[in-house]
């Protein structure tokens, strides 16, 4: 890995790293667009489950 050639490039790298970290955290706890609750309040086959 080469070193950044200028201060500007170093800053750019930091910004890229921050963006990547943001994306990873955002995607692992998928919460994008409308909030999707993690805990279901109606499982699909609760009501119409055949016995």
């Amino acid at each position: 890995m080469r070193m950044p050639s200028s201060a500007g490039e170093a800053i750019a790298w930091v910004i890229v790293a921050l963006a990547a970290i943001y994306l990873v955290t955002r995607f692992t706890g998928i919460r994008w667009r409308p909030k999707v609750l993690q805990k279901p309040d109606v499982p699909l086959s609760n009501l119409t489950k055949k016995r």
Partner: protein
Amino acid sequence: MSASKLLLVGNPNSGKTTLFNALAGMRARTGNYPGITVEKRSASLEHQGKALELIDLPGTYSLTPNSPDEEVAERELRNCPEANVLVVVDATAISRGLYLLTDVARPGRKITVALTMADEAKRRGIEISAQALSETLNVPVRAVDARDREAARALLRDLENAAEVTLDLDYPGLVTKLARDADVPESEAARAVMGAAHPESIEERLGDSLAKRALALAPEELAAAQEAVACARYACTEALKSAATSAPPKATNDTRTEAIDRVLLHPILGLLVFALVMGLLFEGLFSGADPFIELIEGAVGSAQSLVRTMMGESVLRDLITDGVIAGVGNVVVFVPQIAMLFLAIAFLEDSGYLARVAFLIDRVMRGIGLQGGAFVPMLSGFACAVPAVMGTRTIASEKDRLVTMLALPLTSCSARLPVYVLIIAVVFAGESRVLGIFSMGAVVLFSMYMLSVLGALGAAAIMRRTILKGPTPPFVMELPPYRMPTLGALLRITWSKVKGFLIDAGSVILALSIVLWALLTYPVHEESVAHYAAQREGVTDAAELEAIDQAQRAALLEHSAAGSLGKAIEPIIEPLGMDWRIGVGIVGSFAAREVLVSTLGIVFGSGEADEESESLREQLSSATRADGSQLMTPLSGLALLIFFVFACQCMSTLAAVKRETQSWKWPLFMFGYMTVLAYVSALLVYQVGGMMGFT
């Protein structure tokens, strides 16, 4: 001490969420058709110095649930025996509301009643005395226009006087006996009798001992008792109704709604009107937003130029202009169109027309093997598939629900709009008008939406006949009256959605753009740098130097991380008429569709000379392949469009399906079939189109 609870319980479309919003200052989704709210939602507020938790629930007709959304309401009532209940009764359909009241009432349950739609009842000449009803029921009853905040607040003051309702319910002997044997109130025993028709969750709902007794009844005995319970409730409801209406009932039909429906629900005329409405919508979407888009495009270009003049040449500057501004700016360009789409959908939902479309289409749906009600979530899929997937909770049959859930992500959600508009503007601009009214772009856009609907219906039909066979229950849906949506409400809904889009653009798309820029910039291909440096030796002609710079940028792009990835998948997408640059965009768009636009902005923008700020549309139309031929032709554009119509490129939708089905099986299946469908369709279009001589 924990906050006291107030549950909003009522029939679908009776105005519960409207009240909830008015009381708690919330912006939960409302709309003029049954089944908008499908999950519980709570808000805390302060009332007379005490904390109050207000809970909005899905609408239901009784406490014997028929579908998952009704089950949510039933379960919440069961789990909160102490909570106050505000029974929301639509004043224009009072019988149904009071019927539910007879089911909700039980010893110890404190109740107040809101008669919503008071304004509408008045217009239609329906006279109901809240006071008379209150005296009969022995609980506070108040007539309100739920949209009026002050009126809604008065309902909270009623809480002080909340009480058990007194009902004159004459239950059959069997219920009385059951109640005595199981040592429960009669109302509970009545519910057990009614619930025995749906034995699936009865133990959970009613407790073992009562459930066992109810299920042990002989079928004929049970059927007779059920009828008797229903009759007792109807008799009670009618008595309450006549106590509340002094004058003899006169014709109080909604003549306005009936008149409109004669046209809009007409088997032929209705479909014509629907086609016309859609045609105008797409014309508006395509042409109407153009001036705004040019304005924003101009602003994006100026922003890039400004940064270029302000900062010296540096990597950081490139990140800002070619990454951030190109990525985010090119998505933001589509805000006017998205806003128009949301506004139109909000109008269709709020006026009551959407429910009519489901009704019109019921016959088609029946042929497919789904009930017309399944079309309602599909239609709301035009805005976003995530709430639409949840909206399938109103569908009673599990298989119907699953089929609808799996097919509806094919309907074109708003995130596809920027992609459609961009590609169409590049390849179909400047064609002549169709029928003299509709621009070619609008027609192609309309066709993409039609194709998406046909795709969804076709997929549903196939699944219904193969992996998810089963009978289709008949479609019963209440048609709401037409209501003129208020401009304020429409703008509020539109703004909240546009805000969501902008927040996405400012966070996820921004971050993706930055990372993508890095992937397109690094690793720097030192050989190319050395190669072009050697070429520059001794060259003094400015034009020639510029040409070398251009070639170097292209070479660096191709050898970057993302470029190599694009090159690696190029053989797969080449038969669809795409090159590696579009490939990079497609890979990015699996995170979310609109990312295609920002990715293309970065890919094509980075290959450009710095000084000129061409719009993405111009960059795309002048782009060429390696062999010098034009990249975006009508045929390759069409193949790309069709790929986006069918492809499953939305993590949120997959997460929502996982949540609703409680397994990874169905979301993975959905992803698989949609991706295959997208690829094969695009391939067919490009290859067959090419053989037929189209370009």
